């Protein structure tokens, strides 16, 4: 490690610049929030819905910018959440009203909305408005450019999500495990589903400044999938997934700060993926342990 990298490492962890405080807290909040809600998405087999919501947030960003001609948090969140939810509703509508399979409906809606988003963004790049700078960050994320109000939004969403998961822990678990049976017991599975999807959509929208729309789904899928390999208990999966998400956010932001050209979104996702690989190989349900088990059993049988 050369001395400049070492210096930057120290800068990062001592919050030498004010923006680093926001970068670190924002990135970790993204990881915790997406990790917590991602547990439900992964267990409900809705991982790819997270991907569609993320990509479909992009045209909303573009539309909001075209209307207000500035990069304002409120309009951009509203626009992104609007098109993300519209995409989710469209997937359901297409699936119910045609013979299109759910996976195909998801793929085509994701691609259609994302394509529109890219068109809008490149159109905005041709405009003379100087405020357009930074809009490209929404593709791959730029945690260094995250603003205090965005951190506040992420923090607020995390508090709301934690409260919801704590208060509704049992009904959420039962409706995730066996939604049909839960419904017959009087648990409002469908309302819980829509509430969860709304929280996920908002969280994805709040996360795209630091992770970008292309890879935000990975923050939903990867920490939860890693936690799933590490524990057999639901509450531990929620805790572990949030913690792994936080670490992915922290070290992703660090990599992005240390090395020029490392976008923060891809960096976080790479860190998260390495974590998954480690759990896959060495976790308690991991490949290595299973192989060793098998070998021991075969040896015992032979003896």
């Amino acid at each position, binding site marked *: 490690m050369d001395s400049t990298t070492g210096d930057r490492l120290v800068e990062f962890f001592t919050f030498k610049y004010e923006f680093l405080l926001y970068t670190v807290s924002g990135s970790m909040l993204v990881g915790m929030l997406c990790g917590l809600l991602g547990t439900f998405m992964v267990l409900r087999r809705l991982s790819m819905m997270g991907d569609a919501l993320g990509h479909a947030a992009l045209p909303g960003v573009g539309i909001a910018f075209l209307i207000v001609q500035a990069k304002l948090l409120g309009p951009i969140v509203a626009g992104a959440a609007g098109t993300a939810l519209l995409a989710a509703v469209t997937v359901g509508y297409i699936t119910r009203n045609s013979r299109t399979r759910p996976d195909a409906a998801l793929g085509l809606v994701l691609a259609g909305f994302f394509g529109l988003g890219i068109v809008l963004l490149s159109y905005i790049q041709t405009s003379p408005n100087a405020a357009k700078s930074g809009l490209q960050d929404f593709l791959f994320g730029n945690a260094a450019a995250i603003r205090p109000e965005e951190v506040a939004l992420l923090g607020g969403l995390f508090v709301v999500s934690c409260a919801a998961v704590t208060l509704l822990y*049992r009904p959420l*678990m*039962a409706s995730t495990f066996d939604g*049909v*049976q*839960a419904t017959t*017991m*009087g648990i409002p599975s469908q309302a819980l589903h829509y509430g969860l999807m709304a929280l996920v959509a908002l969280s994805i929208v709040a996360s795209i400044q630091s992770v970008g729309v292309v890879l935000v789904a990975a923050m939903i899928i990867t920490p939860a999938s890693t936690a799933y390999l590490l524990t057999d208990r*639901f509450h531990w999966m929620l805790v572990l997934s949030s913690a792994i998400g936080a670490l992915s956010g922290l070290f992703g932001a660090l990599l992005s700060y240390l090395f020029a050209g490392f976008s923060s979104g891809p960096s976080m996702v790479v860190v998260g993926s390495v974590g998954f690989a480690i759990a896959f190989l060495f976790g308690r349900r991991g490949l290595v342990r299973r192989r060793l088990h098998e070998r021991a059993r075969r040896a015992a049988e032979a003896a």
Partner: protein
Amino acid sequence: MNALDVQNLTLSYDRDAVVTRAHLHVAAGRIVGVLGPNGAGKSTLIKGILGLHRPDGGDVRFFGKPLSAVRHRVVYVPQRSSVDWDFPVTVEDVVLMGRYGRLGLLGRLRNQDRVIARRALDQIGIADLADRQISELSGGQQQRVFLARALAQDGELIFMDEPFVGVDAATEEAIVGLLRDMRDEGKTVIVVNHDLQTARAYFDELVLLNKSIVAHGPTDEVFTPALLAQTYGGRLAVIDGEYGDKILIAA
């Protein structure tokens, strides 16, 4: 008063009627088998009765009341294959879920709920598996977990969808014992089943279903070659067995 009254219930998927104009009246304290060929609409009928599938028309009453008024008295045991058995919970967690309906959205489990769950595990013979992760269970054990959850719900009208599929002989015996215990307590059990061989031994009453209800009555009166042939169409053969009994083969 009947445990269940179904009037003129019609259910469809994508505008294709799956069950048409079903009328069904079940008195309390019976074990009722619902039989019919694949695709006859057995599971759909149960889901329609329980309001899980929006009916095109008809009316369903439980103990003379709509489901919303008697939810805690009605229990549903779905097919074992309908859930993910790799879900990160223990056997006890799943059985405790049977208590959630009574807790309300924000309620906490009380000691009494844990006692009831324990008793349910005991009754179905899997108390020793309480702390096991559910992915470690055999098919028969999985089914017992579902039944323990149903017992924990402590209802009076129990619907079971194919509880005998893929279970070992000991579990099948345990389930039948449980059905009889429930009946003897005055409870009513409605079981979707596809095995004709055991129908006469297990059920007090039979409902023969093929898109509509072909027959319903005491097993002796309904389990006849003529009615079965009518239900299963050409997909049923009655063969004279070696020892003077008749063997039914459903395709």
